[in-house]
């Protein structure tokens, strides 16, 4: 039952991603689609932590930034091959997330939010101030991503890579959610003590999902470092973390496709709203407030519940 809807969703996403570039008029639109893809990958991972396991993180842009800067620094200063730099970044972020997860995930609610916020801010400050290796506020250029002589260049080539990676991420995330591991994550969201008494080591699962979501952010960050012409610390700052959480909540918590839609929607919306010039932030804020007031569960769960109800 659950598996057919999963394949249907994945199939629909694949078709959508395949058709999309055909209808995009120029490379500016492709660029927005690629940026939406990067955000979507991070959000699908972050949704495992926030939406499914019920743990907040206001520091995930920090992990995205650490991955990005690991790649940029290892490639430009040390001449590493981009793939090796990406893996090293993911390993570093994974180890860091693992080391901090145990103490901070003992915290709940506002306290956890504060602790993760602190981590994000520390990472952001380090990236800003260690200018001799990070380039400081001016940023750093990582160059093109290349693998075995093939160099990844141009929006359209990137589009296919990111679309493929997004599809794989969604596939893995939906697999995980509908497995004993995923049920343990959702259970500890529902009741930690209830999960414990039937044998779920809740601390272990919290650490696991924190590390997984951080590593996904890191990998996306590493690729982003190569995609963007100049990587700056704003991609790792507090506002970026908030943006990521907003995308997850806006699209719908505990819905993988919700995270995806939220990321795509909130990446595009500011671009669309630029026609309103100075009023853009006000209209953006208004749309977000309206959505949360009228669809508190987020876009995708609300719409899917509406459609299910209408079915005879």
């Amino acid at each position, binding site marked *: 039952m659950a*598996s057919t809807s999963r394949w249907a969703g994945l199939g629909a996403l694949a078709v959508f991603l395949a058709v999309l570039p055909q209808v995009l008029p120029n490379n500016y639109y492709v660029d927005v689609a690629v940026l939406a893809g990067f955000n979507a990958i991070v959000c699908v991972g972050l949704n495992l932590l926030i939406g499914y396991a019920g743990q907040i993180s206001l520091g995930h842009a920090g992990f995205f930034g650490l991955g990005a800067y690991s790649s940029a620094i290892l490639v430009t200063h040390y001449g590493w091959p981009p793939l090796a730099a990406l893996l090293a970044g993911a390993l570093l972020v994974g180890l860091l997330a693992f080391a901090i997860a145990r103490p901070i995930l003992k915290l709940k609610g506002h306290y956890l939010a504060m602790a993760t916020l602190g981590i994000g801010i520390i990472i952001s400050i380090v990236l800003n101030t260690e200018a001799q290796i990070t380039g400081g506020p001016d940023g750093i250029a990582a160059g093109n991503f290349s693998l075995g002589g093939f160099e990844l260049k141009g929006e359209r080539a990137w589009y296919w890579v990111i679309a493929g990676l997004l599809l794989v991420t969604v596939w*893995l995330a939906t*697999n*995980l959610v*509908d*497995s*004993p*591991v*995923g*049920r*343990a994550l*959702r*259970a500890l*969201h*529902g*009741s930690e*003590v*209830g*999960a*414990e*008494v*039937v*044998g*779920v*080591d*809740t601390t272990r699962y919290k650490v*696991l999902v924190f590390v997984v979501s951080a590593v996904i952010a890191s990998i996306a960050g590493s690729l982003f470092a190569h995609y963007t012409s100049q990587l700056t610390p704003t991609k790792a700052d507090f506002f970026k973390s908030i943006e990521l959480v907003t995308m997850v909540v806006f699209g719908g918590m*505990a819905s993988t496709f919700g995270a995806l839609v939220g990321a795509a929607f909130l990446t595009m919306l500011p671009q669309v709203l630029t026609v309103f010039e100075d009023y853009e932030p006000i209209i953006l804020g208004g749309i977000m407030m309206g959505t949360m007031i009228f669809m508190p569960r987020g876009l995708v769960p609300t719409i899917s519940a509406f459609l299910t109800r209408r079915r005879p």
Partner: protein
Amino acid sequence: MTLLSVEKLGKEFGGVHAVSDLSFTIKSGTIHSIIGPNGAGKTTLFNLITGIYTPSSGRIRFDGKEIAGRAPFELAQWGMSRTFQNLQIFFNMSAMENVMVGHHLHLDRRFLPSLLRLPGIARGDEKAREISAELMRFVGLEAYVKADAQSMPYGALKRLEIARALASKPKLLLLDEPAAGLNATESREIDEVIEKVAQSGVTVVLVEHDMKMVMGISDHILVLDYGRKLAEGTPDEVRNNPVVVAAYLGGGVP
């Protein structure tokens, strides 16, 4: 055979002795009730046995192992599970999934196979679904096999917790006020479920206020008052014990 033994157990909360110097044993294959007036320390004792609290003093042995201070999930691995007075249902999941979580320890739960949904994971889930449906029938929830937990009435949720606990295949099942908040009919139905559970070979310990239920189904009763053991024995012995009567009805001990 002794399944659980408690020796000189004590728990202090900032100078208040919720449980003190408490010793008793529980034989396997019995229904054992813990009763006592409000504030007697019943729920504290439950939380000590099931690893929610760490004892201030004393020892707890379960199935030959010293378990005082061990985490609840470890105790579950060794064959102990429980339900809660204030429900601890996973309201973000379906009723069936609630029970499937109960089966967690008996499934392949490795991360990478789960991530790739290898055939073994899919097969395990299929089996877990069958077992969960069977357990839901066992506790009388066949009507809710496809329901979401949040759409179920209170009485059904109490049974759902029992089904979830049973899915972990416990040797010892602790039920914290299984009949609280239920009407007379529902309470009798829960009665039957508990007796069925005991007949299936699971040792049951329950905290309960419903005296009719306690006297009807218990093999052995432990009476607590002010965190200490007041009396112990069969339902008849306890019912006729003047100290117990005094504690419940008030008045001095003759």
